């Protein structure tokens, strides 16, 4: 099963956007999705990032359903 994930910034430059992350099942926690992303794109092991669901920031314990819009956000740098 694959979950579509939108990327920005350096992640988008490296991998394009969207990407499709291999997951065993849905729903899963945001933490599990991030782990699956890191497993698939191993160059980002040391890069911290935030996660957004349906255009709102979420915590890693929140559940992600198949229909949710998901984005992974590298360190922001506005201003």
């Amino acid at each position: 099963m694959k979950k579509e994930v939108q990327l920005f910034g350096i992640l988008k430059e490296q991998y394009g956007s969207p990407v499709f992350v291999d997951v065993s099942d849905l729903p899963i926690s945001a933490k599990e999705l991030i782990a699956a992303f890191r497993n698939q794109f191993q160059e980002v092991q040391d890069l911290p990032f935030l996660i957004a669901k349906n255009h709102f920031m979420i915590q890693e314990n929140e559940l992600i359903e198949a229909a949710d819009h998901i984005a992974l956000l590298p360190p922001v740098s506005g201003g």
Partner: protein
Amino acid sequence: MKTDFQLIDHANAFPDLEQFRSEGSGAEVVFNGIVRTPNKGSDVLYLEFEAYEALFHNEMKRIAETLESQFQINTLVLHHRVGRVFPGEIAVVAAVYSQHRKDAFQACESLMNDLKSTVPIWKKEFNSDGSFWVSQTP
């Protein structure tokens, strides 16, 4: 509290701030963030800004609600450029309108701190030595 949050795609497209003034606001604090050169010893050619627009508006709304609970604010404004921005050009305008200066100064500083910590905007610096993504948080 009134708010106005916009992503601006052209240097001449910043809205006139005069529209946000009112008789009830005795203080107007405006911060202009300007692209500078040199930066860390390299001549900056330009910055390229990218934003996640839907999340930008949601996150700005959340920040505004927090600031409103901390300060007396009549109007809160944040306008941020996206795309290519050259040295000397304005990248961001933050403006706070309040009854008194103390709240306006403090709210404007908090707004800029929040912008740099959670608002989904990214910049890549292109300089005389190459290019790199600027990382601030998380």
